[in-house]
């Protein structure tokens, strides 16, 4: 829907341009509080970590391409697969979904001009960046974490792992958790309070429900990880006894705490992917989602039920039968809300008029692989079967279909889908489709044979295997698949990179999309919307009358909020206009606070506790200075 701007309207737009003009240059980026700029920073940072995690994956696959591989030493292999897991989960998928997609798109979708706490949003980014560098400093100095991403004790205790490796893990994850907690709080308040007047909860795009559910799960799950890491570091650095059975501690305490975080984490990873899928499907099938309320409820249910299934990671540790049966049952129940969504996606595609462009292809790929990963998940919920294939490549196959096939595919599809919005240019459709097929085939060839070698008994995390086990051919196939997959991913990046310079102009709304981000220009201006949009349904952009109404309001100068960096806040349920907020435009304190935190964690790592305390004081002073600026416009 093209916006027709009259000269009167243009005057209003020019005024907003002046008020919201960003600071120029590098300083502008360092001190920015604009959710779109922060989203872009998140995007490129997590993409860089994706590259690092991808290189680690290729190292693993190259090592395993044939029997008795010796590209990596056993010690190096341990570090590489551990960093692969940590990177992909904590430094790629979470920051890419919540950080990049959520930050950039969520305020646009709900018709707001920024997040609820713009400076805290910047803090989340800088803390995330510093924590990523912190953990990679371990790899650079030869002390990368090396006990797997779930880092079981006693292997991870000081006795068996005396170096700094695990300390980089423990402190790195506490550090990273600060960023994620702040981001989760910010998302929830933004979704509850910052929606454009009229966007009551039942008119909110399903994308926002998915992010709300993911942020809620993140908020309640992270304390468990942080606490587990705190216990681990107290044990390792100060000789506490949480995990040593000789002194009354318990190694299973770690497993429980880790998975109380770790299983909701799986849904935290995949819920934003659901949200991206529910944005792309209506646009390319030209119809509303089937069963909107059920899908919204299912998204929240998934996050909620995800807290009750953690011990299905622990079926082989000797829990009481009654406990394992409970967790097996709970793991089966969680299929229901997932299936509701799958049926809704399929029904929407079948009953609509689907246009199989690249973004929708990735979503179809996502649905297929999510079903595949879901089915192997059901087999793993069966206790006797799980006990047979535990810690084998079957499990690796399962969670790669769920995490790569299901969580990353919508990210890739979303990159294509929103590329025209971010850059104002179209990507190349032919190369887009080619990259999909290459990625799709690569994924299947890499991960499917892992089911078979897993059932054949190949254990995960072994740095090599002998020639006479019958695993050689399938492993070679997996490694070839990994190279195909890499080629597909590189093709996506090259397509988008070239299109950024050469692609044809996209206009505001190349897809006839249904959500508010498509009403504004591509790329959106710093103030997002010249007038705060009118909303009367969950598919705001398909309500032509509302958009015409907005054009008239722009001309009259109604709803401009141009007395500074202003944005409306509304009531939680009905989204009635409640107050006009004045937002901060830039602040240097978030990156400074992140630096003091980096100093704190570095000193804790090295055991200089007094200097660490000094950094705490500096951090508190930075926070104080931060709050001396009451959101100056």
């Amino acid at each position, binding site marked *: 829907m093209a916006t027709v701007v009259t000269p009167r309207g243009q005057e209003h737009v020019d005024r907003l341009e002046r008020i919201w003009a960003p600071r120029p240059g590098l300083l502008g980026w360092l001190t920015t509080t604009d959710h779109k700029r922060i989203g872009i920073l998140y995007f490129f940072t997590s993409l860089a970590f994706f590259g690092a995690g991808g290189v680690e994956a290729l190292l693993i696959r190259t090592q395993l391409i044939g029997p008795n591989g010796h590209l990596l030493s056993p010690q190096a292999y341990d570090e590489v697969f551990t960093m692969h897991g940590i990177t992909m989960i904590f430094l790629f998928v979470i920051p890419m979904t919540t950080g990049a997609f959520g930050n950039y798109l969520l305020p646009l979708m709900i018709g707001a001009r920024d997040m609820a706490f713009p400076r805290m949003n910047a803090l989340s980014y800088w803390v995330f960046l510093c924590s990523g560098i912190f953990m990679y400093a371990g790899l650079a100095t030869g002390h990368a974490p090396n006990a797997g991403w779930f880092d079981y004790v006693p292997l991870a205790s000081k006795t068996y792992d005396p170096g700094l490796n695990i300390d980089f893990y423990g402190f790195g994850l506490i550090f990273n958790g600060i960023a994620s907690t702040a981001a989760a709080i910010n998302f929830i308040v933004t979704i509850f309070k910052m929606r454009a007047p009229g966007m009551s909860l039942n008119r909110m795009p399903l994308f926002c429900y998915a992010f709300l559910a993911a942020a809620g799960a993140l908020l309640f799950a992270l304390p468990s990880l942080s606490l587990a890491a705190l216990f681990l570091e107290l044990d390792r650095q100060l*000789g506490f006894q*949480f995990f040593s059975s000789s002194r009354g501690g318990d190694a299973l305490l770690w497993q429980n705490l880790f998975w109380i975080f770790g299983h909701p984490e799986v849904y935290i990873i995949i819920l934003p992917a659901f949200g991206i899928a529910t944005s792309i499907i209506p646009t390319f099938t030209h119809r509303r989602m089937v069963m909107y309320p059920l899908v919204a409820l299912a998204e929240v249910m998934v996050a909620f039920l995800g807290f009750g299934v953690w011990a299905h990671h622990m079926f082989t540790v000797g829990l009481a039968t009654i406990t394992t049966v409970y967790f097996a049952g709970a793991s089966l129940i969680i299929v229901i809300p997932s299936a509701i969504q799958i049926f809704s996606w399929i029904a929407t595609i079948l009953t609509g008029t689907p246009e199989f462009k690249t973004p929708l292809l990735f979503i179809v790929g996502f649905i297929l692989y999510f079903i595949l990963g879901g089915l192997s998940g059901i087999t793993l919920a069966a206790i006797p079967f799980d006990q047979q294939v535990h810690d084998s490549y079957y499990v690796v196959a399962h969670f790669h279909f769920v995490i790569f096939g299901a969580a990353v595919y919508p990210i890739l599809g979303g990159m294509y889908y929103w590329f025209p919005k971010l850059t104002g240019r179209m990507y190349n459709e032919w190369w887009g489709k080619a990259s999909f097929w290459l990625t799709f085939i690569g994924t299947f060839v890499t991960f499917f044979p892992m089911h078979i070698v897993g059932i054949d008994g190949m254990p995960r995390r072994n740095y090599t295997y002998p020639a006479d086990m019958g695993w050689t051919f399938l492993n070679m196939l997996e490694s070839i698949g990994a190279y195909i997959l890499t080629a597909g991913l590189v093709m996506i990046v090259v397509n988008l990179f070239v299109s950024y310079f050469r692609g044809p102009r996209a206009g505001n709304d190349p897809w006839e999309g249904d959500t508010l981000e498509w009403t504004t220009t591509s790329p959106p201006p710093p103030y997002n919307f010249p007038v705060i949009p009118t909303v009367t349904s969950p598919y705001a952009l398909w309500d032509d009358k509302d958009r015409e109404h907005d054009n008239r309001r722009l001309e009259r100068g109604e709803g401009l909020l141009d*007395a500074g960096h202003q944005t409306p806040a509304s009531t939680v349920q009905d989204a009635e206009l409640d107050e006009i907020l004045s937002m901060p435009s830039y602040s240097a304190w978030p990156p400074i606070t992140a630096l003091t935190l980096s100093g704190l964690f570095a000193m804790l790592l090295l055991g200089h506790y007094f200097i660490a305390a000094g950094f705490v004081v500096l951090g508190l002073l930075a926070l104080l200075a931060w709050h001396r600026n009451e959101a100056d416009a």
Partner: protein
Amino acid sequence: MSATRIVRPRKSVPNGIWGMALFLCAEVSLFGLLIGTYFYLDFIARSWPPYGIKAPSVVLPLVATAVLLATLVPIRFASRAARADRRGAAITAIAIALVIQGCYLALQILLFAHDLNQFSPQRSAYGSIYFTLLAVHHAHVLLGILLDLALIWMLATRGLTEYWKVGVRVLALYWYVVGGVAVFVVLTQLAPSL
């Protein structure tokens, strides 16, 4: 985010309070897990506390907790005074709470040091969780005291702007929850003697 212009009396809770409420959800989860860990280790132990460690003495920690809870009264008063635009009353109320909370923290640090002389966190899992639980709680009280100080300073130098009105309410919410958590922490700490 200060509200520069209020359309009409606000209907919903301001963003700042939402932010603190959600932060406290995470903190309450943290304490829930700490207390859960305490009883997890308790249930697998043969004797709790282990042989050679005396069960904790009850009176002082309970009295201290009651004193901490009593400070919720001036905190509540400060919150109401701020909403009624009475800056002086708000500052005074926070200062009164601050003094009592400071005494509470000092007493708790003395008790903590006393316990450290009796048994060590490095010798048993009981000691580990006992001292960790208390230290995390005391850290929250310390943070609250620093928030008191920051608020008093800001109210004195900046005045009771809309931003800091919300700030006083946020502070009050923080103390209500820390006070509530203190009850569960002290009952857990004293569980072997109760």
